[in-house]
């Protein structure tokens, strides 16, 4: 699941998947604009078939936060 998540982040942010880790976020990824942050959230919702709450959406500061919220919604994480 980490790979699936990292790949999606890499695709949306248009960077190499290998550069993504749990600590990645707007600070470390140059392409991460606030708009791309929205795009990422909505594409995650489709990909993992979940719906984040507005509080969760606002709380995302790094990939680890996304993982946490995905787990809360029962998305299956294989790692």
């Amino acid at each position, binding site marked *: 699941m980490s790979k699936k998540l990292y790949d999606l982040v890499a*695709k*949306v942010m*248009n960077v190499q998947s290998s550069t993504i880790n749990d600590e990645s976020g707007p600070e470390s990824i140059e392409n991460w604009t*606030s*708009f*791309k942050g*929205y*795009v*990422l959230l*909505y*594409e995650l919702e*489709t990909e993992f078939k979940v*719906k*984040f*709450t*507005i509080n969760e*959406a*606002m709380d995302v500061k790094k990939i680890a936060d996304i993982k946490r919220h995905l787990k809360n919604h029962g998305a299956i994480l294989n790692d």
Partner: protein
Amino acid sequence: MTIEQKLSYYINKASELTGRTFGKKIRIGILCSFTINGLEEAMRVKSAEKNIDCITYVGGYNQYNQEILNHESNVYKFSPDLTFLIVDTRNILGNLFHFPYSISASERRSFVEKKVKEIQNLANAFTSKTKSKLVIANFPLPTYSPHGIFETKTEYGLHKMIEDLNSRLIDSFANSDSIYIYDFNGFVSQYGEDNIFDYKQFLFGDMKISLDYIPYLANDLIGYVVGHLGLSKKCIILDLDNTLWGGIVGEDGFNGIRLGPEPPGNSYLEFQRVLLSLYQRGIILAINSKNNYDEALKVIKEHPYMVLREEHFASIRINWNDKVSNMKEIANELNIGADSMVFFDDDPVNREYMRINMPQILTVDLPQDPSQYAQTIKKMNEFSVLSITDEDAQRGKMYLEQRKRSDLEQSAPDLESFLKNLDLKVLIKNANEFTIPRISQLTLKTNQFNLTTKRYQESDIKKLSEDDRYVVGCAQVTDKFGDNGITGVFIVRKENPKEWFIDTFLLSCRVMGREVEKGILGYIINKAKENEIERIKAQFIPSQKNKPIEEFLPNCGFQKDGDYWIYQSKTQFTIPDFLMVSVE
């Protein structure tokens, strides 16, 4: 149904477009009352897929009023060809969006009245300052009303307000050739209000169109680009087995194919109905099928549930030849460019073969499920046009007449006796309110027999026709088989008391090869003589497609003079005697 890409695909793809070269170019302005990130990227990528370089300008957030009213604003500096104005219902209604019943019905009426005037004023201010066409999105009708199920019993309620506003907008600009109304409300109902409008996206990021649907919106808006640039497809070429009917007539037989009111035959019936409606709008239909001619034609002529009959097809190729050679023959026979053609075939191998050999043709990926055929064609933006003229509606009939002409031509001993037998009449008409849309359309669409390939929008033609220094006219060509409609255009600029200049001279491919051009040129020369003009100057601007007109000027007695061609009015010019030229 075509599967749409996610928005991130377009955002990333757009960044790779810089430095690429394209065949056409368009500048698009987007003025919006809300955040609409991603739309410009999706439009640029979708334009690039059609070989169009799309340069965009997106106005500041909710700045559309200032941008339009201020002469010096960035949108005017950007100088767009096409501008979209998208204001959402919340914005236009203000407080009344939430509280429509805080005021009386008559106050609601005056409110709508006021808003219509505001939009009219904005639109007129815009078009007075720029040549850009303006496309105004109408207002989506929210399903919710505080009156709930009583809404439909409410006098001039919230829903009625928006419907009235939308219908008045259409009426306001019905006769304008520079202002168009985009049915944004239709877009929302097509994909569903709950999908398009996502409260979380709206409250979190002020996004009033859900990100997943922005590419679909771009698809709709690209229709205007296609129409504006005159890139609309003109002809649909159809396979037969498993495309127009289910099954294979050669194996299943006349009675065994699936076509009729029951499933699955009704899928094909539905598809044929959409095709017929496009035919009635002016799209030409043709057949390219591997089949036994007699067997397949019997279905077309006699099957009780065929919607499309022989008369609807401008060209028919039913044989065992290679589909690519058939396609080339069809293009030749109809005299239209492969880039105006769309091919429907259920067989992926045939499609791939066509794509490789004739990439200019748009080969559509028909879905495996025939129940989706009708939807597939309805979703295409490639047939978008900004005007539909009388000629368009008659086009199918004209091509049928053309088929009869070809038969005569083949039976005639030589070209001249064919032309003599044709009873050709050329009627010269001035540019006026009836002919201007068609004149503009011909300048936008004609490639082959076009001396200068100058493109003019309706508003340009209108201006030129009102200018004393120009003569703008067109020619309607008829013969014994029927009316070809307005198929020739000329624009002459009066340079000085002794010289005229041919700015535009073109002939639709429909009437090429009948020396009609000599009738039109003869008219121009005679008119010049009447005005004591000594010289007529012309220019041939070569393009990739206008080779057919290359020899026209020298053949008509023009002498080369640097980059130009000169005709001395005293030279004798003879209009072929089989042409009857008259002036309306």
